[in-house]
């Protein structure tokens, strides 16, 4: 029997959800793949076909949430009327909204990433392709529409934004304010700052200043290194001393 792509996707989501539920209930270490498979109604070999390890399951979960968030943004009819800041803010708020249902699970992951090093930050980075692409597109659209000028290090900005996003999640995990109001305000304030930096051309000015210093001071000292003579003034001792004892 041939399994269609959408049926595969459905099974994947079903396994993910039962895994998340089990991890919330028993903790990451005590939740077994066998029990996850049983709860999801699939066989043991099947679950390994989808996820070779529990860690892979976590990464898949994060990727899945990116997908759902982007799908949710696509449902907003007048999204193209949002400013860049509003678009970025909506992306982050939507992701957090999706996490809210599985907050205890996210708290566990955050703990593993930030404290017990049970998960590698680097591997988490491998899950962010869709997120980065989305941010990249938002930036391109804003530049094309002349909402902002082309910023320096433009290619790195989406990745930087992902780092910022990790920081927001870390803040949210520790946030104990009513309805996580503090996180909402933290996002609002910090994106306000980002917005004004992008609008003020400050990045360009800072990079021009940096280039000036680099060219006039750093570069010449680098040349000093390169052109330093590889000769010596004192006479070298002979090597034979060691051999001769």
């Amino acid at each position, binding site marked *: 029997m041939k399994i269609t792509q959408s049926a595969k996707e459905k099974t994947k989501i079903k396994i993910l959800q039962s895994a998340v539920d089990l991890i919330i209930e028993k903790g990451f270490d005590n939740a077994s793949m066998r029990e996850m498979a049983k709860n999801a109604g699939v066989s043991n070999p099947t679950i390994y076909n989808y996820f070779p390890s529990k860690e892979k399951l976590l990464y898949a979960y994060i990727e899945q949430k990116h997908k759902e968030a982007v799908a949710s943004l696509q449902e907003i009819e*007048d999204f193209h009327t949002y400013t860049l800041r509003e678009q970025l803010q909506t992306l982050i708020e939507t992701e957090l909204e999706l996490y809210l249902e599985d907050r205890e699970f996210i708290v566990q992951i955050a703990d593993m990433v930030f404290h017990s090093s049970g998960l590698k930050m680097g591997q988490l980075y491998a899950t962010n392709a869709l997120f980065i692409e989305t941010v990249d597109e938002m930036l391109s659209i804003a530049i094309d529409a002349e909402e902002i000028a082309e910023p320096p290090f433009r290619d790195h900005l989406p990745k930087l934004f992902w780092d910022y996003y990790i920081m927001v999640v870390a803040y949210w995990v520790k946030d104990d304010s009513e309805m996580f109001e503090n996180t909402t305000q933290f996002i609002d304030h910090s994106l306000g700052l980002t917005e004004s930096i992008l609008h003020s051309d400050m990045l360009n000015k800072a990079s021009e200043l940096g280039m000036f210093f680099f060219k006039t001071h750093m570069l010449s000292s680098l040349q000093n290194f390169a052109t330093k003579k590889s000769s010596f003034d004192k006479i070298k001792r002979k090597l034979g001393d060691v051999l001769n004892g």
Partner: protein
Amino acid sequence: MDNALPTGKLSRGKVVGKALLKIGAKKTKRLLTGGNKEENHEEIADIIFDALGELKGVSVKIAQQVALGMPFLPPAYLEKISKSFNAIPSINKALVRKIVKTELGLYPQDAFDTFEMTAFAAASLGQVHLATFDGELLAVKVQYPGIKKSIESDMSLIHFGLKRFAKGQNVDHIIGEIEERLYEEVDYVLEAKNCDFFRENLQIENIVIPEVYHDLSSEKVLKAYTQTLTLETFCLCEVAS
């Protein structure tokens, strides 16, 4: 434009401090140059209004109470303050979407048939959006996030300030009174109840009390049937006719 609401006592204190500095500079300038007093009032009112706009919410409410309670203030101040009844910087679309989802469990496009993301009116402690639901035109009042928390820090700032001016007189009861009213104002459930009360008991021609949709309302989101005029516009219409 940065729409963030400064909630920390420190950040709010900074806004107030900046405004006071500007006013001080204006006063000094007038002393030195002997400028027109009226003009100066207007400039100072401008500064105060800008600062209040920056603080949003609670401070604007306090300004309104001052305006109501002290009609002897120079007209330039009263005019600026009365503007604040309707014109406060808006919260952005991302925040509106987030607040509706948090309060009602659904995003605006799912909770309503249509929803205007740009507010058509600003209240001091929230802003109002047009929406339709089941063919009815609704006014949806959405509250700024963190307003309730900023009441506390603002009131202690005010307390600090008033004590300096009161010169030993007890101002605690005034502070208490304002604080109580403020907490009432941020509770939209209470506002809904009041709305119902007036709708049932007030029957005056040409005054329509909006009908509240309770199952679509929460502590921070309130929905009501719309098509109203601001009180001031209404009064003007009455005089004209």
